[in-house]
């Protein structure tokens, strides 16, 4: 293990390290903690300039209640209605593409695979004008469906990369054994490969959930207004509505950030497994 395990160091350094950890962590999260602190202050604190002292009262319920009384729940709902179908769609499509590219040898396999990877890295801006146009033409501008369709298509690139590498690492003998038994190829997919892909599906679902929830660019390009915009875009209009009311803006930001954070803490193992795929050989 590197660096040297702390247990083998001197007692003083061991205690020092234990004391250092929370301090460094507080510094690291200071900008966020400041916002959390703002979100439970009464507005009078801001008027008298009490930004960093002890709050004169704790207004957590009132502040967060105000947020829930605004358009915020609508935006949050929209975010869920955009994110969940995207996760399902992108994971389903990439299970199939990943299976095709990971199991079969055929001409163009690597070319298609690299096309998916390259597409996943392109700057959004090169897609912006045509995709916005296409969405307008289909009558899907300012709808959740329009956003979902694009997200599914774009995320398929990253998901395919992920799934293909995962499937490629599965023991190929399993598939050969199934073929010897005379099992149809689609049955091999459904009954042999898919059950083994559960960890990959879990990891990918959590990752895509976070990516899509946090998307801002496409939200402002393809939607406007309360009925379709997700919370990342909605928070700017929320902030415009409560301009200079920092306790409410802070509370709104915290609510907007919460779902992916919960997702991360609940599914931490899968999340990190997904994110660090390829970081070890």
């Amino acid at each position, binding site marked *: *293990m590197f660096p040297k*395990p702390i247990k083998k160091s001197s007692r003083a350094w061991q205690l020092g390290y*234990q004391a250092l*950890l929370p301090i460094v*962590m507080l510094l*690291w999260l*200071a*900008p*966020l903690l*400041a*916002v959390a602190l703002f979100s439970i202050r009464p507005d009078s604190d801001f008027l008298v300039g009490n930004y*960093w002292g002890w709050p004169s009262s704790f207004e957590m319920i009132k502040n967060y209640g105000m947020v829930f009384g605004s358009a915020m729940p609508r935006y949050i709902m929209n975010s869920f209605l955009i994110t969940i179908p995207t996760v399902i769609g992108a994971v389903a*499509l990439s299970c*199939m*593409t990943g*299976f*095709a590219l990971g*199991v*079969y040898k055929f001409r163009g*396999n690597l070319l298609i695979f*690299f096309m998916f*990877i*390259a*597409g996943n890295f*392109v*700057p*959004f*801006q*090169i*897609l*912006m*004008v*045509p995709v916005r146009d*296409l969405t307008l033409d289909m009558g899907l501008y300012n709808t959740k469906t329009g956003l979902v369709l*694009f997200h599914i*298509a774009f995320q*398929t690139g990253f998901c395919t990369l992920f799934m293909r590498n995962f499937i490629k690492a599965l023991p190929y003998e399993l598939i050969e054994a199934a073929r010897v038994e005379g099992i149809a190829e689609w049955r091999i*997919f459904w009954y042999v490969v898919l059950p083994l892909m559960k960890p990959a599906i879990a990891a990918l679902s959590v990752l895509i959930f976070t990516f899509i*929830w*946090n998307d*801002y*660019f496409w939200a*402002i*390009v393809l939607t406007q207004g309360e009925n379709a915009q997700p919370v990342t875009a909605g*928070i*700017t209009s929320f*902030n415009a509505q409560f301009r200079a009311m920092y306790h409410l*803006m802070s509370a709104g*930001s915290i609510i*907007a*950030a919460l779902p*992916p*954070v919960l*997702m*991360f803490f609940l599914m931490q193992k899968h999340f*990190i497994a997904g*994110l*660090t795929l390829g*970081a*070890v050989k």
Partner: protein
Amino acid sequence: MATTSPWNKTLVKQGWYKRNEIAITPWLFLVPGLIMFAIYVVFPIFQSFRISLFKWDGLGSLATHGEYIGMANYEKLLTRDRSFNISLWNNLKWLIFYLASIPAGLFIALFLNQTVRGIRLYKSLFFFPFVISQIVVGLVFTWFYDPQYGLFNGIIGFVGFEPINVLGDPTLSTYGVIAAGLWPQTAYCMILYLTGLNSVDPEQIEAARLDGAKGMRMLWHVILPQLRPATFIAFVVTVIGSLRSFDLISIMTNGGPFGSSRVLSFYMFEKSLSEYGFKMGYGAAIAVILFLIMMMFIGYFLWRMYQDEKAANR
């Protein structure tokens, strides 16, 4: 055996499918994904190239309302557009300073790579900034920098400096935004390195220790070579992330003050969909240039991956 009719037909049909099953199946599985990807990603790239040759406000179709002007958009961009120059330079600043997240992430990973009580929770909390959306990160840092009540000025005021309006100063704004971007990106690199450190071969470390290696020498000669896959991925995601920066700029400075913190991705958006009228053709030309810059990196990454694939297949 001359009579049987439909029954025989299906048998023949099945036979053909069965015989070619292994050749056909992958394509059947690829079709839905490929169609979606072609419609929303591949074709739009070519369309953008085409649109960049037009003067077009996005109303009506390109063919009827667009005016073909050849390379004029590019000519204007590269010779007469000062904002484009500033954006390009800012992109370069992003690229260079954003890379600092790699050593920073490694540093934190080394700090946290211990087995003490509660370390798992600490690791998660350090990773936290990456999970929250860049919009919230942007808001958090905007308030952090606020000249009146921000924590940043609280701290430098405490040390005895005059307050600085970081985001309101044309020479500082870009750096202020980059610093905000470094926060989640460092967390990302940290998690990559933590995973990498987990799989470092303990025997090699012991052997090196016996040879008297420790500290920086150990890190440089023994640990880092084993962390190469993690470093490569950290490099890929950081470069891509830096060229994609948009959300933070949009939230924190909206490109300002006086356009001083724009980057190409933001400038493109502004030109195409701003309130001063839609210049889709000009925007597309900016996007094409950004795309070409990105393509150099993507090409390099793909080449590296291709080498790996070849090595894996022997």
